[in-house]
């Protein structure tokens, strides 16, 4: 792959993030106003300072008007984009490239999703008119295929596998319990996770991320301008995005224990950032734990654990808040919630807090390099985003 990257050329100088959850009293417009105004304040800027906006949402509005109308943005470019569950990260990636190109000096990436107005359980999509031959399987069903496949390939008995998945959910709720913006702010006992009602395969409801409303925003400029706006900016080391050919559902050699798209986007990002040993060099990560087995597989695809070892590292506490390589210190999709378009920027919000030493009770000791990973689709057919950020 030939992505040259923009290592250390672009900085984040302000961020905002709403509490995620069931905001019955707030629409997408309200959530956008809250997140964007918080980000303006964080960067110490006025709306007039921002040259252009990128808005990610999968279904809470169409066009840039979704953002410009509630915020009364005065005749500026606003791009609305969508890339499944990686939408928020895509808004950030495109905004970062815009300032790197020199076309704009100061831009904003915003993500929003208002999921709880539908009245349905889980996620709902609005597919274009089709021929009716799709499998009709839901997201938890697609991701549930990972667990038995991983267990079989690496000789993990299903009882142990259940313990591993439970550990991931437990850890992320433990972290979310220390986060005032998380959807779920309580630790969940292991027994409750183990016995939660079954949704798909071996996944119970406590293996699934929270369906929630929320928004997040980032103010982005070129590195040389960063200190104009903020004394403690964070710097983008790598941005990688991959859309796969969706062959896993068509080729018999795909075994549902990996996301090739993640492997490729991680390889690309590490090359951009000059990372050759992610297990040692990445201080912390926010990853796309849409369902507990996803996080397990990601630990290997991102190179945090050798193949077949992530289940042991998980059980050994490597990825705990105070483990060697904390993963999802803010609670992740599992506990912080997953308003689709906002999630990628929410991950970056935790990097922002942690790298600046503002994570309070969750603060990781002296983090240097953080990673965010955002995924959209299903095993065998997905898009993957990886960023590396640091000081």
């Amino acid at each position, binding site marked *: 792959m030939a992505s040259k990257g923009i290592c250390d050329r672009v900085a984040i100088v302000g961020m905002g993030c709403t509490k995620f959850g069931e905001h019955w009293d707030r629409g997408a417009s309200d959530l956008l106003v809250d997140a964007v105004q918080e980000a303006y304040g964080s960067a110490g800027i006025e709306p007039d300072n921002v040259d252009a906006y990128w808005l990610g949402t999968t279904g809470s509005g169409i066009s840039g008007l979704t953002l410009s109308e509630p915020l009364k943005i005065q005749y500026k470019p606003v791009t609305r984009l969508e890339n499944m569950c990686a939408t928020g990260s895509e808004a950030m990636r495109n905004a970062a490239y815009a300032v790197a190109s020199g076309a704009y000096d100061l831009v904003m990436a915003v993500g929003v999703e208002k999921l709880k107005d*539908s*009245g*349905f*359980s*889980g996620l*709902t999509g609005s*597919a274009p*008119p*089709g*021929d*009716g*031959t799709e*499998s*009709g*399987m*839901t997201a*938890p*069903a*697609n991701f*549930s*295929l990972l667990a*038995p*496949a991983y267990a079989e390939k690496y000789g993990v008995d299903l009882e142990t596998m259940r313990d591993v998945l439970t550990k991931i959910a437990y850890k992320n709720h433990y972290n979310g319990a220390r986060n005032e913006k998380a959807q779920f702010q309580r630790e969940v006992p292991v027994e409750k996770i183990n016995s939660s009602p*079954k*949704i*798909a*395969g071996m996944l119970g409801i406590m293996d699934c991320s929270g369906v929630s409303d929320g928004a997040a925003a980032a103010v982005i400029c070129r590195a040389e301008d960063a200190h104009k706006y903020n004394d403690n900016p964070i710097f983008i080391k790598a941005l990688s995005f991959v859309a796969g*050919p969706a*062959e896993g*559902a*068509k*080729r*018999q050699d*795909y075994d*549902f224990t990996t996301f090739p798209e993640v492997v490729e986007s991680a390889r690309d990002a590490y090359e951009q950032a000059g990372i050759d040993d992610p297990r040692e060099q990445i201080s912390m990560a926010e990853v796309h734990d849409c369902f507990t087995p996803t996080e397990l597989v990601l630990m290997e695809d991102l190179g945090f654990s050798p193949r077949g070892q992530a289940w042991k590292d998980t059980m050994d506490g490597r990825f705990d808040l105070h483990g060697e390589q904390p993963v999802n210190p803010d609670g992740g999709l599992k506990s912080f919630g997953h308003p689709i378009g906002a999630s990628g920027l929410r991950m970056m919000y935790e990097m922002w807090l942690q790298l600046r030493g503002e994570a309070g009770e969750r603060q990781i000791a002296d983090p240097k390099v953080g990673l965010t990973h955002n995924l959209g689709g299903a095993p065998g057919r997905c898009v993957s985003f990886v960023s590396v950020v640091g000081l």
Partner: protein
Amino acid sequence: MSGIVRYGSYVPFNRIQRSAMGFGRGERAAASYDEDSASMAVEASREALRGLPDGAAVDTVVFASTSAPYTEKLNAATLQAATNLPKSVTALDFGGSSRAGLSALLAGLDMAAAGRTVLVAASDVVVGAPSGPRESGGGDAAAAFVLSGNGAEPIARLIGRASCTEEVLDVWQSPGMPFAKQWEERFGASIFTPLLVETFARALADAGVAASDLAKVVLDGTNARVFRGFMRPSGLAPTQLADGLAGTVGRSGAAHAGLTLASALDGASAGDRIAVACVADGVDVAVFEVSEAIDDGRPKHSVASWVESKRDDLAYTTYLKWRDVLPFEPPRRPDPDRPAAPPMQRAERWKFGFLGSRCNRCGNTNLPPQRVCVVCQASDDSTVEPYADSECRVSTYTLDRLAYSLQPPVIGAVVDFDKGGRMLCQLTDVDPDKVAIGDELEMTFRRLYTAGGVHNYFWKARPKR
């Protein structure tokens, strides 16, 4: 002269005990939530079309049912598309009476005598008012016949026939009525028994055979009381009576004469003469003589094998839900989208014919057919690869308790075909607790759901039956 070249039958997997319905003995066959008369007709037709002899190229398709999925839109076209018959076929729907199945067979034999090669499929999903005799006595099934007048050697030749039509109020259902009604059976018997005796005699005379020459007599009709006074006056012995499948399948409407005829053919030997009669709004009688070709012409599944392959504990409330009789709490999920006409048209060979593609460069098979090969990325260089009859197995699977279904959980499986190719599809006719990786599967044509009055047909996999 014309005759039956091949035949096939289909009895769905599920049975409901009549004791659970509070009426009658034994059990009845129940189409699954994802089946209707068109999908079952496809299953029976696939049986009849497999291994057609040389010279039997079907050019006419006839669908007969009293429960056609569409009242306007040709159901025989679904049959043509799902069986990959040429678009040049003449296609017709028959209905209006449960005699339509045998009438269609006779009409098809007439067309065959005129030089056509005809597929006749009769199929019905019989729904009666809850707790009534039609509900418990009915059954769901399909039968199909390929008919020819020349060329292919028939397995059974039509040697005689007779018909009679009577304007009488016996069974009726007008638009807006949820269930058919039937007049008092004693009245029906008083009208039909003499008509049956007379018509049957004419058919035997036409065939030039005596009642005692018949190996089997297949009797079917809306009213079992009609047959009480028929056998002895017609010179028939009880041993000649074919199994009417009442206790195992139930009367499957327009399909039933064909289904019981198929059952008789399953057990027939060369030289046997078989008469089949159907009494509904009149009488049709056909007399066949079985030929030497019978032993090479039997379908993969006998009626008995379908009957034995079953799950027999269907709950009555589930049955009523499947038949849209009992309203129920829907899942908290959006209703499925109505499939759109242009995409369905573009995907017809995949959606109905289940045809994939094979890359001419690397030989990889692509499901659904791809313009760009998933392995070698060669573009627009592939040939059609049929998959409906391909062996396949469960690579991995999951139980989806969130997805919309009339029978949760949806069993989603990654299905790998022995000849190459993979697809994600739903399993059906399977106990969720008994699915296992490696299970052998076969493909089956189903109605996934109905949305906006549009029936969404596609293929699922089921354990081998």
